[in-house]
């Protein structure tokens, strides 16, 4: 079977942006067309990953709007919403469209506009993904992180400092990412002294609220060289759900969607965790990076907390994780994040990551929706 290649990638600056979603998506989409050297009229399918444009700014019908603005009228369009993992789900949809032969050229644009809302309002929009028996208690996604972190630290006798090491590492990586929302180092002590948000987690254990957009261009591998010499290939992709109601999970410290989606991606790629050179993980909260390291097979259960303090996941470590700065410092515009993870891998695998460059032929991105409710894992391979 002809595999699916990525022949173009772009992302906007993440952070507090004056632009609304329409302009953010157009900015990333326009740059992606240029990067791939594609004329708008050539694009068969256009997918837009976005969680909540209706709730955030009262704008729906976004994919059709973007097709018109980018000169792609006539293209098939579709919105992909899978909460925080909308971007990864968009990669899955874009891959399907090309792998099935339905499209010869597919563009995926992910984006979200959030910062015009207060932290409380944005938190409520995101919390609206919960079940009614959860929502009525005022639970938020950060609360789930606090509940899980307390149990994890207790069960595996892990030091609180190990989570601070994750945040410090990702902030350090973000300094060298010109697209990142925060480009400053934060010390472990500053993290441990920051205000409590969801006990035992503190402000710097959490990603910020962010505006931004990112885009990718997909085509069959057999024609990729017609567009560029520097393409990557989707070696594997998988998606899976876990329980919607978080407390119904048998082991709250295991993310079943991460386990299942990565198993599918590894199988398709005929690879295992030992083949991965660089990873972008969904560090919406520091504890999530630790759980993903375990559930993706990079560490034994209960041992994932050791990787950041031991230097395994730093840029010069054996498995650099979140060279982009992660959601933690790069920012987390919901629908854009999964696409931006793949953007970072694409830059790394094509040797375009600048100061963040690591030696890598295979990259893995794990994009987590809800609190592990729905997850996609993508494996990109260099050519």
């Amino acid at each position, binding site marked *: 079977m002809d595999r699916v290649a990525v022949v173009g990638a772009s992302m906007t600056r993440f952070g507090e942006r004056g632009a609304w979603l329409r302009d953010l998506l157009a900015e990333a989409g326009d740059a992606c067309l240029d990067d791939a050297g594609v004329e708008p009229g050539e694009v068969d399918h256009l997918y837009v990953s976005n969680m909540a444009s209706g709730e955030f700014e009262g704008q729906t019908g976004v994919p059709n709007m973007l097709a018109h603005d980018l000169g792609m009228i006539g293209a098939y369009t579709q919105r992909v919403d899978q909460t925080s993992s909308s971007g990864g789900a968009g990669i899955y949809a874009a891959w399907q469209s090309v792998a099935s032969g339905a499209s010869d050229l597919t563009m995926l644009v992910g984006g979200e506009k959030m910062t015009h809302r207060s*932290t409380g309002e944005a938190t*409520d*929009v995101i919390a609206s993904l919960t079940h009614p*028996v959860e*929502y009525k*208690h005022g639970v*938020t996604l950060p*609360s789930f992180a606090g509940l899980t972190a307390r149990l994890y630290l207790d069960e595996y006798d892990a030091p609180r400092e190990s989570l601070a090491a994750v945040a410090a590492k990702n902030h350090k990586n973000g300094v060298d990412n010109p697209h990142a929302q925060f480009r400053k180092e934060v010390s472990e002590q500053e993290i441990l002294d920051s205000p409590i948000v969801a006990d*035992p987690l503190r402000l710097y254990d959490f990603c910020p609220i962010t505006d931004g957009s990112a885009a990718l261009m997909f085509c069959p591998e057999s024609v990729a060289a017609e567009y560029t010499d520097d393409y990557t290939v989707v070696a594997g992709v998988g998606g899976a759900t876990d329980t919607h109601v978080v407390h*119904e999970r048998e082991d709250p410290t295991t993310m079943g969607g991460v386990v299942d989606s990565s198993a599918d991606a590894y199988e398709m790629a005929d690879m295992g965790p030992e083949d991965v050179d660089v990873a972008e993980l969904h560090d919406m909260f520091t504890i999530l990076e630790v759980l993903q390291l375990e559930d993706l097979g990079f560490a034994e259960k209960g041992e994932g907390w050791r990787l950041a303090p031991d230097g395994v996941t730093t840029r010069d470590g054996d498995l650099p994780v979140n060279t982009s700065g992660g959601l933690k410092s790069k920012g987390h515009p919901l629908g854009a994040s999964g696409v931006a993870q793949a953007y970072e891998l694409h830059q790394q695998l094509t040797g375009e990551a600048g100061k963040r460059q690591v030696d890598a032929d295979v990259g893995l991105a794990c994009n987590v929706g809800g609190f592990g409710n729905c997850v996609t894992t993508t494996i990109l391979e260099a050519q």
Partner: protein
Amino acid sequence: MKAHRCPNDHLTYPGHERCPECGEHQTDTVSLEDRVGKVVTWTTSTATPPGVRQPNHLAIVEFDVDGQAVRALGQLTTNDVELGDDVEPVHVDRLRDPGIREEASQEWDGYRFRPV
């Protein structure tokens, strides 16, 4: 606060159209309201959305129903708890104001957990 049971004796809270374990329809309910449960984990959320008390103490609590474990998330009356503590549900008429969600779309009363 009722757990739902299918013919194969799987128990869930809340109920679902089909049993998550075996796919059968759930046919029976068991009240958790007069039982004592154990704190599996807890947190205090200080950044709460509009309509939610601040700070908001929350716990996941495990009940033993005839040898079967079933869990529920709920507010705590206090943050003076530790993992494994015994708690009991106390009814509250309104746990929060609706926020972004339509008021009529769901119930807003429920049970808060109090240390025994």
